[in-house]
Each structure stands twice: as C-alpha cells, then as structure tokens.
C-alpha cells in the first residue's frame, strides 16, 4: 500500500514558522481566555453564514425500521406482526407510512425537509451491537479510524492549532466516528470516570477538586509569562481546555431557545448543539445519541416513546434554528446499527435484524423516500435481505453527505468510491 504524502504536507521548518506566527500573537498579550481575546480570534476559522454543519444522531440499540417506516400495503406485515403491526400511520409515499409517534418528522416531510432512505445496510450484516455500531462509526468493515475522522484528516488539516473545536460530541468520550490519524481539536466531556479505575475509594478532596484546579490555574497564569512561543501556546491551550468545560457549560446555561424543547434528555442534547451553533462556533460536525432502541420485549410502548422523543427533539431543534435564521446551515442524519427481524417474538418484541432506514433532515434536503423500492415481506425469511437492488449501502449515504453537503472529496475515505445519491 502506497504511503505517499499529500501535496500540502509541510516540512518541519515550514510548519514551525507558521505556528510560531500564530503563537507570537498570544505571547504579546497577557493571558486571557481566547474566546474573549479578539486578536486571537482573528486567527481562527471565523464561522460564516455559509458554514455547513452536520449533526449525527445515533439511534442506539437497533431501531425497528419496519415499525418506523411502515409498509402498510404489504399484507405480510400484518400477518407476521399480529400484535406489533402499526395499523395507523402518517402517510409518506404510496407504500410507506411513518409511525404515528412522529408528527414533527411528518411535518418536516411535508415541508420537503426530510428524506427517508430505506433498507440501508451493508453486505453480510452483523448483529452484534458493538460490532455493528463500530462498522457504522468506522464507515468500514475494519480499521481504526472513523469516517468523520477521515473527513477531518482530508478536509480540515489544521484544526489542531485552532482554538475552537471542529467536531463536538455531546457525550463522555471521543466517539469512534471521530477517530482520526492526525490530531484535531475535538471536544467532548472526557472524564477519568472509567469504572476500571476505583473512583469511590479515593478522597473526595482529590481529583478535579477545586483546590487542585486553583493551583493548576495559578501555574498556567504564571507560565504564560514564559517568553517563548511554545510555552505561550501551551499555556493558552491548557487554560482553554480548563476553561472550555466552564465555557461550554456557560453557553448551555445562558442559552434561550425560541420555545422549550420536547424530547427529554435527547432534546436537551440537541438544545445544547443549537446553543453552540448559535454562539457561532466553527464546529463542522456534532455527534449525539439517543439510546434504548433494543426492544426485545414489550416493544409497543417503549418504541413509541423513543420515536416520540426523537421526533419531538428534532422538530424542536429545527424550529429553534429557524427562529434564529440558522436552519439552512444544518443537516441532520439519523442512523441505527441495524434494524430488527420481521416477525415479532414471543415477548411482544423483536430481535436483532439487518437493514434499517436512515433519515436525513434539514431545509437543504430533497425530501422523499429513497432506496431501491419495497421488499415483499412474504418473500423474506426471518430478515430483510441486504442486496444492491433494493438496499442502499450506508457508505453511499455517507458519501452523499460528504460530497454534496460538506463539499469534500470522499473518494479515498471508503473501501471504494460510492456514488452520491440525490437526497441532498
């Protein structure tokens, strides 16, 4: 495998001279958090109204696609799901309906702001939550980088030295989707809370406590007086990281949405995304998660509730963005690691399946139902099959978003070049 360098890669000397330029601005000013420091902000990627933002929603657990996008014309749907089949729905197309729990999504569909891509998956689908999620996150059947990580490597090469994050995760770790070869400025609420390490037994007055933080801040303030650019860069990065959490929390706390968000905890995370977008962060990609879709038993109520949350949250999110004139900048994509089996099981639930629908939201979307068409359930065994005729490879969806929305060249990001679709 060839490891040729990209043409824009630079030698150490060139890299150093540009970073020295950046840092020297910092060393001239006495330390102040860069969010507030005008001169430093001038160096950063300024958010523009053309800034295209992608929000990723992971529906974790394996969403039951058949009860979300309902094949109401198919008799086998009712005969194979005597208890769970949805008898009422919002109409989407001639053969498909949307679960009644999603009125907000349906409204967006009617406004040409939602695309549904049916039967999304990949060859030989995997039914392990972890393995399947990893495949979706990597955008590949094997590897160590995430598809957004590869996008960041290719399209955003200099984020490491930027003050503000290029990608943000509303969770506690850096999701595999963001794993990249180069370092990028990625924000998430990383914590030492890994249950492998004993946190209960240690002194309450210890890690991350006020006193240590105070000492740390003192050291940073004092180190900023060191007269060379590396130290200055370090101090400001450290202070930024320390202050970042405080800043982020302050942005969240002070944010006033147009209207209160529906959708529980997931709604809250989308509200936080809106807060960061409204603040003008140059972040290109946001990652959020709504869990609980693993409905092996007593699916009816639980699934409905989850869909209602998701639909309510996304509806609130776009209403909010619209009220601030930001909606045109944002496209949201929802995926699940797999769908569920056609037949209901003995516990009024469904088991791990294969393909599932993906959803794309936003004013730039060309609304409609996409994908190769409808699968006759009577012809299927236990699972919906993945095949090229009626199915869509998930990497094609990613490619479409990367090329048509983010304006990136995705040809080297997946195992081969996929053709972009027309939903955006």
């Amino acid at each position, binding site marked *: 495998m060839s490891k040729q360098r990209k043409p824009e890669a630079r030698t*150490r000397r060139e890299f150093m001279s540009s970073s020295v330029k950046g840092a020297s601005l910092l060393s001239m000013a006495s330390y102040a958090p860069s969010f507030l420091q005008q001169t430093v902000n001038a160096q950063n990627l300024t958010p523009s109204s053309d800034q295209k933002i992608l929000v990723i929603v992971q529906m974790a657990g394996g969403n039951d696609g058949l009860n979300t996008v309902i094949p109401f014309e198919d008799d086998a749907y009712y005969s194979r799901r005597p208890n769970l089949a949805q008898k009422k729905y919002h109409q989407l197309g001639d053969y498909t309906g949307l679960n009644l729990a999603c009125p907000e999504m349906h409204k967006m569909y009617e406004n040409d702001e939602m695309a549904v891509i049916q039967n999304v998956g990949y060859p030989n689908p995997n039914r392990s939550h972890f393995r399947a999620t990893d495949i979706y996150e990597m955008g590949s059947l094997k590897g160590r980088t995430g598809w957004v990580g590869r996008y960041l490597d290719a399209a955003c090469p200099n984020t490491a030295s930027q003050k503000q994050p290029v990608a943000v995760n509303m969770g506690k770790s850096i999701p595999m989707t963001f794993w990249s070869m180069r370092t990028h400025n990625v924000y998430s609420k990383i914590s030492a809370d890994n249950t492998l390490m004993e946190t209960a037994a240690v002194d309450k007055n210890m890690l991350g406590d006020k006193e240590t933080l105070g000492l740390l801040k003192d050291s940073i303030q004092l180190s900023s007086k060191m007269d060379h650019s590396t130290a200055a860069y*370090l101090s400001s990065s450290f202070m930024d990281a320390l202050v970042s959490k405080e800043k982020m929390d302050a942005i969240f706390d002070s944010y006033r949405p147009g209207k209160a968000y529906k959708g529980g905890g997931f709604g809250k995370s989308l509200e936080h995304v809106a807060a960061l977008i409204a603040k003008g962060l140059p972040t290109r990609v946001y990652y959020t998660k709504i869990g609980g879709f693993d409905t092996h038993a007593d699916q009816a109520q639980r699934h409905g509730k989850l869909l209602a949350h998701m639909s309510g949250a996304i509806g609130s999110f776009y209403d909010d963005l619209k009220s601030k004139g930001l909606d045109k900048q944002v496209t949201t994509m929802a995926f699940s690691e797999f769908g569920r089996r056609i037949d209901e099981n003995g516990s009024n639930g469904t088991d791990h399946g294969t393909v599932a629908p993906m959803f794309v939201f936003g004013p730039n979307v060309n609304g409609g139902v996409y994908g190769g068409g409808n699968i006759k359930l009577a012809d299927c065994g236990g699972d919906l099959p993945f095949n090229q005729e009626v199915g869509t490879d998930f990497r094609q969806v990613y490619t479409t978003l990367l090329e048509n929305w983010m304006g990136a060249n995705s040809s080297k990001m997946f195992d081969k070049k996929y053709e972009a679709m027309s939903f955006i």
Partner: protein
Amino acid sequence: MAEQPKTEGASPDAMDIKRPITPKPSQGAIDKAAKAWAPLPKRAWDLDKAIHLLRRIGFAATPAMVRDLKGKSAEESVEFLLSRGESFPMPADVQNPERVKAMIQASLDEADAKYRELDTMLDAREAKNMMAKPEDLKLRRYYEGLSRQYTQELANYEGAVFDYYSHDWLNFAAKPENVAQEKLVMFMHNVLVVNCQDGVKGDLKVIYHYQKLLRDGLKGNFIDLCKKMSKSAAMMNMLDLTVNTKLKPNENFSRELMELFILGRDQGYVEHDIKEAARAFTGYKFRPGSFEFYLEQSEVDNTEKTIFGQTKNFNGDQVIDLIFEQDGAATHLVRELCGFYLNSEPIPEPFIHALGQQWREQGFDLPWLFKAFFSSGMFYHSLNRGKLVKSPIDLMIGLSLNLGVGMNPFPRRNAQFLRMMGQEFMNPPDVEGWQGGNEWINNATVQVRRVLIESFFLPVKQNVLTDEEKKVYKKMTYDGERSFHVDKARLDTFSQKENTELVDHLIKFFLPVEPDFKFRRVLISHISKMGDVPRETRIKQVLLALLQSPFYQLA
C-alpha cells in the same frame, strides 16, 4: 523547483541544471558557531545539567538515575547512557498472535457472561417494579463496554496484538538501562519513517524487525543504516519498492530517500535525479516468512542512469553513496536531531552546518554524532531549555519514572491513551512522521493528558477484572510488590520530605525550567495549610497541579 531537462530520458549534463539548495552560511559564521559544539567544560557540569541530560536523552530524571552518573563528566555520562541499552527480544505475542486471540476470546466470554447475569437480574427487578441499584446499572454498562471492547479486539485481533507489542516495548523502554537507546530508536524511526497498515497479518514481525534494524544501526554509520533500511521489508512495503520494476519504475522511495531521509526538501536534487535513482532500486523483493531481501533479476533495470550529473549503471547502494556525497547530507539529519532533542524552533543554520561538517569528516558515524551532540555546550545552553513539547510516549513513560509507578498493566488502556493523544506506537499518519512541538497540543489532547495524569493516582478496581485480566494484573504487580498508582508507599517517598525541601525537589526533577518564584511560594504555602484536609492530600494536590501544568509538558 529548478528547470527540468526538455526531453524525457535524455541525459542532461549536471552543469546545466541548477539544483536548488539553501545557500550555505559563510565559513566564518560556521567556524564561529562551531564553538557551541565543543564539549561542555568539566567545571560547568552539575546536578541541573545532569537532570537536563537525563530528561532529554531519555524520558525523565530520577534521583536513582542521577546517582548512576555520580563522579562522571558530561562526556562520560553520555557515553554511559548511550552504551547501556539491552536487546529487545521479539515479544511472545508478536511471535504467536494466536495466543492473544485465545486470551481475548476468554475475556470476551467472561464479560458477556457477567453482562448477561446482571442484565437478567435487572430485568427481573424491573418486571417486579423494583428499583435498580445505581452500582448495578453502572456495572452492567461497564461489562457492556468491556464486551464491546473485546468484540472489537477479536474482530481486529492483529490490532490487539499490536497493542500488546506496544505495551511490551513501553515497559522495555522505561527501564533506566534502555531509555537513551529507545529514545534514539524513536528519533530514527521519525526520520526513516514506516507505519503500520491496518492490522495486516504478518506486518508486526516486519515492524519488529525494522525497529531492530534501527536499534542495531545506531551503532554504525548513517550510510550503512540507510542501505540496510532500503532492503527492509517494512520500508519496501511502505514506499512501494516491491512493485518498483524495470518496466514500471515507482519513484516513491527514491523521492523520500532524498527529500525526507538524507538531504531534505529541495536540498540539492531535481525531479530527474529522483526518476533516475528510482531505476537503481528496481527488482527489490523480500521473501515471505523470513523477510530476507533478494533481487528479482528479471525486474532489475540494468541500464545506465544519470544522477547528479554522473552516468553509470548504478545499483541501489551506489545511489545511496552518491546521495551522501551531496552537500545536503551533512546537515539534514543534524537539523532533525536538533528539532527532536534540542529546540522545537529551528536552530540558526551556521550551527547546523558547523556540526554537519564535522560529522561528514567522521564518515557520518552515528555514535560520534550523538556523543558530540549530547555533551556539547549547545545542548545545555539556557536558550534551549524547556523548548520541546513532550510527545505522548515521552509523557507516559516520564510519568511512570517521575512517580515511581509502573505503567498501567492493561495494554489496550495504554494504547488507547496514546492514540487519543495522537501518537500510536510505530504508526505515524504518513511518511513525514510526527511533526511534534505544538502539534501535540490542542483542546482535546490537553484533556486526555490531564486524564492520563489523573489515572496514575487511581487504583485499579480489582473486583471488575475478568479472570484473564486478574492473571495479567497479578503477574505485572509481582504479587503486590509493584504499584500502578500513587499509593501510600509511593506517596511516602514524597511526604517524608519537609515542605520547602519537597517543593524544591519536585521543581528540580519535574520541571525543565525554573518557574516564577511566586509559583514556588504558592505550592509551599498550599502544603503548609492547616485545616481539615490532611497533609498527604495536599501533597497529592500539589503533585497533580504540577504534573497537569503546562510546565510539565515541556522538556
């Protein structure tokens, strides 16, 4: 780039081609700069400089390592440190990856079983409308995560073996005998770069052999090292030498040979030289299994090549000799050495040329270069102090040494930390290697560095370990003798010192530059505070504040 010859394949006279090169400083300036490379005078050698040497040539300075240098001069110390290194045997897991697979499977089965047990129990409670205990929910999430981790490792177990190799190497490199040698291996690897392809079977043995080639090559001269490197399976894979044939020459290797390995970008070569040189490396192959180099005669281009204005049927080794005759060869590695070990900002050219000229006279001997470099006045100059940013590996091993604590015994955890900080072992993003300096530091990596430091203060939770993990843990702790976190015994080594003495000791050993006197006062007064919080806790807080500060990230 200079003008190219008008006709492809014509043999241009070198005199007509202007090869770009950065103008050489005047010999006067070079001679003046040469004084900086003279050995540090005996009277100037002191504790502060010994600590600086240990921190730079390895990963950290400890009182024990300083004691090893007692009675030695700067030159003797450098020679001592550079000659101690042991050989690094192929890790058992690299030799036999199947064993790793079996271990991972065993751990996965156990994590799955524990998860199912908890899940069933919690479902049963839910069915009876009973509240779930938060610890149980947390534990179930933990085993879910663990199961996910092991499932991924199993699917990609060559990657897991890689983490085990990385782990074995980290522990090897952290031994005081090996620190200087292994840091040099890291340096040389960052010049003659290969990286690991995504978990392709067999790659790890290739990478191991490459690392060994570098380690052994440090004892000889750079020309020989480059020749051996050109015939290594790892480099042949990296830069397409195995598909470089007479009919379809591939310039990937010859380009990097000049641009990144020997001369430096735009330092005395043109496209034509690269194209012609590529033909001298045709037919390079290696035998699967033994990775032994051989020439596939049918693919070798046995015709004349014109490189740097000389025409001959050059073979690969001869091309390397020819490249070393060019001016740029004297200074490129010196520049890299200074960027890695001396100052992340470029050193003025006269200094580079001064050392380079002497190195050429020494036949590009590497031990000579390293000895001269590390024992020179320049190396200890105040302008070069605290001017490097510790790489993730520097930080991890340095913490272990400074705190007297073993590195976490679970390979994937260390590997994950290193990845999140941007440095996967032996796997830089491309053939340019890691740029280092400020590139290690951004919002995300700062957070990860802080979490890594905190993790050295947290004990491992025994009751969540799988049986397989318990075995590992028991082995690594020598049944409790060795610690992986700053426990009471470790803390005693610090808390036994009186407040002022302790702060001075910490500043001296942990920080590369003297901080503002105010900071020293703040630390002393913090430990001295009376009240509810015990002195030991205050000491931990001071340690954390010091280690998490920007000062500690510098070297």
